[in-house]
């Protein structure tokens, strides 16, 4: 039982972390049609801000203030950079966020150096929540999961139950009409961009302490976040949640599977043949674990190009 329970729990929590970062990305795309390449950079900024602030304020205030700061950065980016290039079309927006991601990485290197920084889980959360088999289950992982779920619930309620949510949703679907009804659509865009960035910042502030805070963290997660958004369906929050969990669980469980295609072919008596051919046929599933999300993306794009829950082309 525990052989399956631990990987599942690990997968769910990793998936929730992925969701925290991809939620903002998918919201921003859904609303403004911008594929924000700099999104994972906000994740990194969140971690670095929290690292810089924790010396001054301590851990808890740092992980609250850091996302707010990242949100402000997001708002400034939208207001003074993206809005200017908006009229030139999506290609320009995409390119400018691409360039922005490089600039942010270089700035981070300039201020914090090339190597991972000393940002760690605080002592008050550095204990085992429970023991499964011979291994402890770190409480901080549960904390990350709780933060992610809390965030999902808050965003979901905000969008579906409040007046602000109505305006935001209408601005997504019919921006011209929303504007005609007297809503300041550019300001809504700015707000959504800021909130999306802040969510990525929160994810970074929380996860940076558990994993590593280094100038490469945006790059390491960035690609995967795009995969999540594509699988979930561009613009769909629920889809992002579903895809994040799916990817988290698939990669986590796959690590424990030592079977290869040859073992599968052995069922039909062709095992020896497959082993003779070698190559991809004897590659263990476990060694491919980190590549499976990309295979999954390929599959989704082939079968259902709009993504699992997406309705946009």
């Amino acid at each position, binding site marked *: 039982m525990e052989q399956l329970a631990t990987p599942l729990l690990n997968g769910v929590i990793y998936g929730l972390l992925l969701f925290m970062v991809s939620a903002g990305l998918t919201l921003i795309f859904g609303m403004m049609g911008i594929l924000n390449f700099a999104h994972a950079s906000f994740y990194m900024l969140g971690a670095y801000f929290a690292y810089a602030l924790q010396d001054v304020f301590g851990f808890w205030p740092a992980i609250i203030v850091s996302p707010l700061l990242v949100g402000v950065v997001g708002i400034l980016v939208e207001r003074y950079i993206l809005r200017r290039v908006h009229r030139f079309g999506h290609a320009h927006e995409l390119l400018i966020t691409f360039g922005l991601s490089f600039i942010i990485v270089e700035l981070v290197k300039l201020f914090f150096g*090339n190597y991972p920084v000393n940002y760690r889980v605080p002592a008050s959360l550095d204990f085992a929540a429970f023991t499964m088999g*011979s291994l402890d289950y770190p409480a901080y992982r549960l904390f990350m999961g709780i933060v992610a779920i809390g965030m999902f619930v808050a965003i979901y309620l905000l969008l579906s139950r409040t007046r602000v949510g109505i305006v935001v949703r209408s601005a997504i679907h019919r921006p011209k009409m929303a504007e005609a009804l007297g809503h300041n659509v550019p300001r809504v865009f700015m707000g959504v961009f800021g909130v999306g960035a802040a969510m990525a910042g929160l994810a970074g502030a929380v996860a940076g302490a558990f994993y590593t805070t280094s100038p*490469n963290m945006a790059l390491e997660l960035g690609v995967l976040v795009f995969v999540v958004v594509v699988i979930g369906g561009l613009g769909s929050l629920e889809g992002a949640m579903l895809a994040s969990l799916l990817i988290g669980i698939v990669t986590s469980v796959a690590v424990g599977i030592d079977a290869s295609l040859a073992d599968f072919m052995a069922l039909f008596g062709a095992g020896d043949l497959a082993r003779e051919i070698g190559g991809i046929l004897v590659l263990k599933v476990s*060694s491919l674990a980190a590549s499976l999300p990309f295979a999954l993306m390929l599959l989704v794009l082939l079968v259902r190009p709009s993504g699992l829950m997406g309705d946009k082309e």
Partner: protein
Amino acid sequence: MKSPAVLKMALLPGLMFASALATAAPVKIALVETLSGPQAATGLTYRAAVRYAVERINADGGWHGEPLELLEYDNQGGPAGAADKLKAAISDGAQIVVQGASSAIGGQITEDVRKWDLRNPGRELIYLNVGAEAQALTGDKCQFYHFRVAGNAPMRVNALVAGMKQDQALGSKVYAINQNYSWGQDMEQAIVDGAAAGGYTVVEKTLHDVGKIQDFSPYVNKIAASHADTVMTGNWGSDLLLLMKAAKTAGLKARFGTVYLDQPGNIANAGDVALGNYVAQTFNPEAAGEAGAAFMQDYRAKTGHEPTFIEPQTVFGMLLVGEALRQVPAGDGKLNVRKLALALEQASIETPMGKLSMRAQDHQALLPLAVSVVSRDAKYKADGTDMGFKPVKRFTAEEAAVPAQASCRMQRPD
């Protein structure tokens, strides 16, 4: 004010001297490293070490009194960029190419250098490999103009096993987890091969994707399920850090035997997680004694930081070239690279760690190693923490050496 004529007279001998030198082109050394992008941190440490070494060789008189010139190229982190920049280096007149980070790039450079040398007799290049540790480079890809001054997987693993065994930290069950490319596969093979000598069994082997995994906890579960006493890994960068952190937070009771734990930032980031784990190093200042302390001090004075990770081996590799250069006669003022390669095969120097020499058979350097444990008692602290690497066992170059691979059939010039 002095008369201009007097000034001219005073300058004249100096000018004549300078022009005599200018006729002989200086020996150019091309560093083709990853100087930008996500892997730049490592490339920049190689650059710091090469700059330091060139300065030191020049202070000692360079090549027959003429300073070496260092050219720097950014390979942008990939073999394609390296191939491009190698061409640029050749057209700029470089005769020695230095590179270390990434065996994939090393493989590209050694192939390109081999082909160039084959097609351009008399205008050969030397590739000084100061860090690409893949076995193939001194195995079936070995060639006369490639020289490696770094360890390799069997050397590192054998040293680790002996050191950890002496400390009674090895245990009888070893788990091998490595990155799925040439270096990681070499490490896995070396760990399996070392089982008999080390008296352990390899309970499980894992190869995983390079640099793509954020969450190593599924792997830690696998390690726990195997009841391993020791985890041996050639992982570097985030793949090492994240693995060790995941193991620590899960309360895994296994020690780590590593190759790259001394990468800058690792100890600071891992914190207490690093304590009690082992690393096989090419340089440890505490093990190197007074000479080590002097080297540390001089390096810090010149570069602003202490030499760690791959920097010492890079410096020693360059100094070995400096020594070989001394053996090559000045001739007509142009360096004969073939003679340099022959001299390099015979070269040996005394480093703070002991004697370092080149093995002519496969051009793998024979270099001393140290196995160290992360401890608060270490004399030199790492990354500004209160922890450092305490040496537990030293190996002379002879003790650390492993036989040349049978697959190396080197074509030698006559």
